């Protein structure tokens, strides 16, 4: 079926009218378009990255010389806690979610995400967490017990005041946001895929997002339980979870926290591994080597990730058999990760690599991440771990893993998908300058920290004396941090200049293979004029000129096509809800409930009371609009163009 230009223009206008968020301030507050929410997440998380970076720079400046008096111990404690909390909870996890929330519907060929209002609700919760943490920092009430808030230090006896309460509730808000994002991505992947996109045709980016979403569902409740139901309760209503004089247990906190905290690392870098495959495929002009192995490696990594948490606790009295088990598990997880690395190397080997900025970041990722991985295997040894426990060696390791495995591929993804989001290409020369400065800066900052760790420099000290001999390596690390900061400035200049004046990209500037490139850049509110039908893993490479599409969906309302879970056969039509103020209202109710609970338990009851009004309003407004209709078979509504 071939449509005339006039028909296409008319249909596009109608669809745009139906799907776009309402203009104006009201529309801004009620927006539910997954791309709008995704962009807001991306921008806010990047601002958080900058804030965390400023905190890191301040700490590095303080440590550049011995006995520095630039920052006192109290402010330093707040800085490293806020830095860790920001990078893990307000940047690392949500930025990866943001990439999924923006791109998963586009990559599976859907008009929207499964639960658009829930998506908006998650974002507003995240914003409450951001504002709460940073207001507390500026009024000298920021958390100061470290990003993992070990008890008894964080308990009521040793941390009076409200600093730790702020941490506990910031974590709660970000967990709510992460959990609703995870449910959204799972359901979108399982039920909103375009016809023909059976499970074995799902893009690896989406596989990574799916696996990570399942990890979030099982990991985040642990920290939410620990922070809200346990730590905050111990501090507010005198429960005894961690009070050993009443039978409580400080080690319980470590178990609960690291049961979340270790998978958290994988939650941050598994999505990044999903970025790598399409970048490698596109710039090597070759289908990825070992699709099935990569999917299985993803799933295996996720399983193992939940069996490693005790290796964070080797310095506590854990039974020897338990230590051996967790040592073995910590080493075994290197195998699926290794499988992935070898698959990408094989793809690059057999292809014709084009060294664009995005591709350079992928190569930088492999280099940096492998170093972080190797020191991880070293730390899996109990004897070694006890030698370097709580030293700068651990700081070096975790930054190599998170920057190498998470941030570096994320930058590659920014360069790769920036044209899709903005419609314009980023400048490649500035991009390459960013890459080299970043790679040099990261290694100059963090490699010396391994040596500082061997020399016995503990982490989280605000200063050291000159006779320790740590001065030179610390100065080198600080120079490295300045180079990283310079690289980020180059990136910012490039991003802003390109967004407003970069070269126009067109729908598919890289000649990539995924469905997200089958729609204009930036994508319209309705994502696709017609829902594509997927016939292979690389639809645009295999059917570039004649992409089959679905017709028959209504254009005069927000109708989406639901498909079956395994084979993605058309199942029924479903109406997606329009924008609403209730997600914002309900997020404010959550703010009242959780922030208020710091000051009085009565706020919990008050918060629940006002939330009920929000739930009723949400439910009532969702009832307006037309219903869903069953379709008999896919064949009746699939029309090959």
């Amino acid at each position: 079926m071939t449509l005339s230009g006039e028909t296409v223009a008319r249909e596009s206008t109608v669809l745009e009218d139906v799907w776009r968020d309402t203009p104006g301030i009201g529309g801004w507050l009620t927006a539910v378009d997954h791309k709008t929410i995704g962009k807001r997440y991306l921008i806010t998380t990047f601002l958080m990255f900058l804030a965390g970076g400023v905190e890191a720079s301040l700490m590095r400046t303080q440590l550049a010389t011995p006995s520095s008096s630039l920052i006192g111990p109290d402010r330093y404690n707040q800085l490293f806690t806020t830095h860790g909390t920001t990078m893990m909870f307000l940047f690392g996890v949500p930025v990866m979610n943001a990439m999924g929330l923006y791109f998963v519907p586009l990559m599976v060929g859907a008009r929207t995400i499964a639960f658009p209002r829930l998506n908006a609700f998650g974002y507003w919760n995240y914003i409450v967490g951001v504002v709460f943490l940073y207001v507390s920092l500026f009024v000298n009430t920021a958390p100061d017990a470290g990003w993992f808030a070990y008890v008894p230090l964080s308990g009521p006896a040793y941390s009076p005041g409200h600093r730790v309460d702020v941490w506990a509730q910031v974590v709660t808000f970000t967990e709510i946001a992460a959990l609703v994002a995870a449910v959204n991505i799972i359901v979108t992947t399982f039920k909103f895929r375009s016809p023909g996109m059976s499970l074995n045709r799902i893009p690896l980016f989406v596989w990574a997002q799916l696996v990570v979403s399942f990890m979030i569902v099982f990991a985040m409740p642990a920290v939410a339980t620990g922070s809200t139901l346990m730590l905050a309760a111990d501090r507010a209503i005198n429960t005894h979870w961690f009070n050993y004089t009443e039978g409580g247990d400080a080690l319980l906190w470590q178990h609960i926290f690291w049961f979340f905290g270790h998978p958290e690392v994988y939650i941050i870098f598994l999505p990044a591994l999903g970025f790598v495959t399409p970048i490698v495929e596109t710039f090597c002009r070759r289908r990825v080597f070992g699709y099935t192995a990569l999917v299985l490696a993803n799933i295996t990594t996720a399983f193992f990730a939940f069996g490693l948490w005790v290796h964070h606790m080797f310095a506590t009295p854990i039974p020897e058999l338990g230590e051996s088990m967790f040592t073995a598990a910590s080493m075994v997880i290197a195998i699926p990760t290794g499988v992935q690395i070898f698959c990408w190397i094989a793809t690059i080997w057999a292809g014709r690599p084009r060294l664009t900025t995005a591709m350079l970041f992928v190569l930088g990722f492999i280099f940096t991440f492998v170093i972080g991985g190797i020191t991880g295997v070293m730390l899996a040894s109990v004897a070694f771990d006890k030698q370097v426990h709580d030293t700068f060696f651990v700081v070096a390791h975790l930054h190599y893993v998170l920057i190498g495995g998470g941030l570096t591929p994320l930058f590659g993804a920014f360069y790769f998908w920036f044209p899709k989001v903005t419609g314009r290409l980023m400048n490649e020369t500035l991009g390459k300058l960013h890459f080299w400065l970043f790679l040099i800066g990261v290694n100059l900052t963090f490699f010396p920290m391994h040596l500082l760790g061997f020399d016995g420099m503990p982490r989280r000290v605000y200063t050291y004396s000159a006779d320790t001999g740590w001065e030179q390596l610390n100065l080198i690390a600080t120079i490295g941090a300045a180079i990283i900061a310079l690289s980020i400035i180059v990136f910012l200049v490039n991003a802003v200049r390109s967004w407003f004046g970069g070269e126009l990209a067109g729908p598919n500037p890289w000649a990539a293979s995924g469905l997200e490139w089958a729609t204009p850049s930036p994508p319209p509110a309705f994502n696709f004029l017609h829902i594509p039908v997927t016939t292979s893993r690389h639809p645009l490479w295999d059917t570039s000129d004649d992409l089959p599409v679905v017709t028959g969906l209504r254009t005069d309302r927000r109708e989406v096509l639901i498909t079956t879970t395994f084979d993605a056969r058309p199942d029924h039509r479903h109406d997606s809800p329009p924008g609403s103020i209730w997600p914002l209202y309900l997020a404010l109710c959550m703010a009242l409930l959780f922030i208020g609970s710091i000051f009085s338990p009565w706020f919990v009851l008050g918060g629940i009371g006002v939330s009920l009004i929000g739930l009723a309003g949400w439910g009532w407004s969702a009832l307006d609009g037309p219903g869903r209709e069953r379709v008999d078979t896919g064949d009746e509504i699939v029309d090959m163009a």
Partner: protein
Amino acid sequence: MWWGTLGFMVIEGWTTALLVASYLYFRQNYDAWPPLRTPYPSLLFPSINLVIMLVSFIPARRAAAAGKRLDLTAVKRWLTVFSVVVIPILVLRWWELWALNTRWDSNAYGTAAWTIVGFHTSLLALDVCDTIGLTLFYYLRRMPPKAYSDCSDNSFYWYFTVGICVPIYLIVYVGPRIL
């Protein structure tokens, strides 16, 4: 879509499992269980409430079936019955909490027991409000056909809420007599 409901059931079920695991973890810190001559939890109110919860499956199931048939009269009737049944469950929960015979601030045992039952109470209260709210919606406005699936979603969540109450009852109320 019940997929979303399922997602939140997994999250809440898992949270409950973590709380129960923590409760059992505390067992190693005491010689006796319940510790420090704390009396056993009473079984009267928890047992009565569990029976009522299990009986409430009947109107829940009937309401879901009526929703599937788009039978407005039956939906109204069974949702009303369902609402009437769930209210005493929430009221009895108050006595159930005190039937633990300890307080949240007595010791770690009391903390864990109260938190498990308290967290479950929040799930229970949420679904009671959802049931009553849904019932009121049917009386207050014309419900579009797509909304009828909310009846089965609501019942689905109720099966889960009651379902996890059974292991909680066995571990928190009966368990101290065995552990």
